[in-house]
C-alpha cells in the first residue's frame, strides 16, 4: 500500500489511531526521546538518544511476584505485559533493522514470552533519512540503508510538504486504513520524487566499516591481538555504549525484596552490560573477561563476528550512538577497521 499524506494531516492520522498509544520523538532537556503523544507530533528529529528497543525490551521487566509466609510454600504470580497497542512514530531505518535482530535473540533456542508479548503489541512507523542524522552514521557499510524498511511496519519519506507513506506489513496497513480518508494515491510525479529522494539519501557520504564481509573471519583470527588492550586503554567501563545500542540485549535477573515478613517481592529483569567489570565475574572471583580489552573485544566481536556466525548477519546496524556518546572517544568503526586491517 503506497499513499501520500500531507504533513499538516499527520496529527489527524495520529488522532485517528484510537486503539493505539502513540509515541513519537520529543525534546526534553535537549534530548530526543520517544514520548507518549497527546498533542501535535514533530518528525524533525535527528535520531533519538535512546533507540526504540525499550518498547519490546524495557530496561526493567517484572517476571513474577513472590510471597512466602515462613514455613509455607512460596506463592508465585506471573506478571505478563499487557496494555494497549503501541504505534511508534519516527523510527530511523537503522533502528528498524535492530528489530529483527532482537526478534532473533529472543526467539532462538527458546521463546521469551515477555519480549514476544510486548513485541506483538507494537508497530513501528519509520522515517527514511534524507540525509544522515548524525556525523557517525554508518548504516550503508553494515548492509543497511537510509531508506531501509527492514523491521518497520510503515515507512514515511519526507517529500517536502508531504510524506510518501508505504505500508510494509499487515500491521502497517492497519495503521493506514485506520485513517484511510486522509491519504491520497501517489501521482507519477510523487513516485518520481520518491525515487530521487531515496537515491540522494543513499548517495550521501557516510563513515564506513571498510570490510564488513571480512570482519567475522578477521576478528576471529584476532582474538589474541594486543590491539584490544591498546584500543580499550581509555575505556572507563560505563554502560553508555550498550544501554544506548538498539541491538544490545544482555540482561540481569534479580530478586527485589519489598518486605521480609512475610517475604514478598519480585523477580525482575534489568538491562546489563558487558562493559561492566563484574558482568562475567564468577562467584569465586574468577573473571574470564578481566580487562577493558577483553570486554571491548566482546562487544565488538558480538556485533561483527559471533552474531554473524550464529545468524548470518551483523548485529551492528550502524546508528553510531556508541561512537557519539562515548565519553572517551571509543569508536567502533575505528576499532573494527583497525583490527581487521591488522589481521592482514
Amino acid at each position: 500500500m503506497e499513499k501520500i499524506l500531507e504533513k499538516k494531516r499527520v496529527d489527524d492520522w495520529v488522532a485517528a489511531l484510537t486503539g493505539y498509544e502513540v509515541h513519537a520523538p520529543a525534546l526534553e532537556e535537549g534530548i530526543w526521546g520517544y514520548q507518549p503523544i497527546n498533542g501535535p507530533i514533530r518528525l524533525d528529529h535527528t535520531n533519538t538518544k535512546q533507540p526504540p528497543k525499550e518498547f519490546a525490551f524495557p530496561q526493567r521487566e517484572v517476571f513474577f511476584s513472590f510471597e512466602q509466609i515462613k514455613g509455607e510454600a512460596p506463592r508465585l504470580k506471573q506478571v505478563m505485559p499487557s496494555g494497549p497497542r503501541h504505534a511508534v512514530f519516527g523510527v530511523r531505518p537503522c533502528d528498524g533493522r535492530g528489530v529483527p535482530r532482537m526478534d532473533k535473540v529472543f526467539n532462538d533456542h527458546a521463546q521469551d514470552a515477555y519480549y514476544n508479548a510486548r513485541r506483538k503489541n507494537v508497530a513501528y512507523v519509520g522515517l527514511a533519512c534524507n540525509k544522515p542524522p548524525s556525523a557517525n552514521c554508518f548504516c550503508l557499510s553494515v548492509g543497511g540503508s537510509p531508506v531501509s524498511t527492514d523491521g518497520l511496519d510503515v515507512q514515511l519519506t519526507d517529500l517536502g510538504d508531504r510524506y510518501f507513506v508505504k505500508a510494509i506489513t499487515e500491521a502497517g496497513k492497519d495503521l493506514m486504513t485506520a485513517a484511510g480518508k486522509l491519504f491520497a494515491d501517489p501521482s507519477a510525479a510523487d513516485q518520481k520524487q520518491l525515487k530521487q529522494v531515496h537515491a540522494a539519501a543513499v548517495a550521501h557520504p557516510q563513515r564506513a566499516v571498510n570490510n564488513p564481509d571480512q570482519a567475522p573471519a578477521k576478528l576471529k583470527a584476532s582474538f589474541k591481538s594486543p590491539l584490544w588492550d591498546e584500543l580499550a586503554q581509555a575505556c572507563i567501563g560505563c554502560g553508555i555504549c550498550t544501554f544506548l545500542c538498539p541491538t544490545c540485549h544482555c540482561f540481569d535477573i534479580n530478586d527485589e525484596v519489598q518486605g521480609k515478613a512475610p517475604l514478598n517481592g519480585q523477580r525482575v529483569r534489568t538491562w546489563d552490560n558487558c562493559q561492566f567489570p563484574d558482568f562475567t565475574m564468577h562467584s569465586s572471583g574468577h573473571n574470564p573477561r578481566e580487562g577493558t580489552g577483553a570486554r571491548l573485544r566482546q562487544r565488538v566481536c558480538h556485533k561483527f563476528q559471533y552474531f554473524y556466525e550464529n545468524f548470518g548477519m551483523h548485529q551492528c546496524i550502524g546508528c553510531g550512538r556508541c561512537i557519539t556518546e562515548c565519553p572517551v572517544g571509543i569508536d567502533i568503526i575505528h576499532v573494527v577497521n583497525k583490527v581487521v586491517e591488522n589481521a592482514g
Partner: protein
Amino acid sequence: MSDQQPYEPKIVAFLCKWCSSAGSDLAGVSRIQYPANATPITVPCTGAVSPMYIMSAFNKGADGVLVSGCHIGDCHYLEGNYLARRKMYLIMKLLEFIGVEQNRFRMSWVSAAEGAKFAQVITDFVGDLRPLGPQDKLKRAEIK
C-alpha cells in the same frame, strides 16, 4: 489513607548507644508519655552514621529520619559527634536542595540523663511530620 486509620509518621531514629539510646531508655523507664512512631536503631556513635543509612531509611519508606547523639564535648570517642555534625549538615543541605521538606530530617543531642528531652524531640518531630503526610519522594515505589 482511610479515615479509620489516621496517618502516623514512621521515624527511623539512629541513636548513639552511649547517650541518646540510653536517653530513650530513660524516657521509657520514667514512663514519660511520647509518641511511639520512632523505630530506634542503636549505633556506636553518630560519627558512624553513613549518609547511606539515611538515604536507605528514606528509600525503604521512612517519613522522617532522626540522628541523635551525645552533646558536643561528651562523645565517648572524643570527636565522633563533631564529625557527625559536619556530615549531617551536608546531607541535610543536599536533601533540602533536591526539594525534600526540611522537617523530614532532624538531628539532636540527647544525653543519657535527658529522658524528658528525648520524649520532647520525638514529640516535636512527630508533630512536624504529621502535616507533611507520607514521604513518597525518596521511597521505593510499589511495582506498577
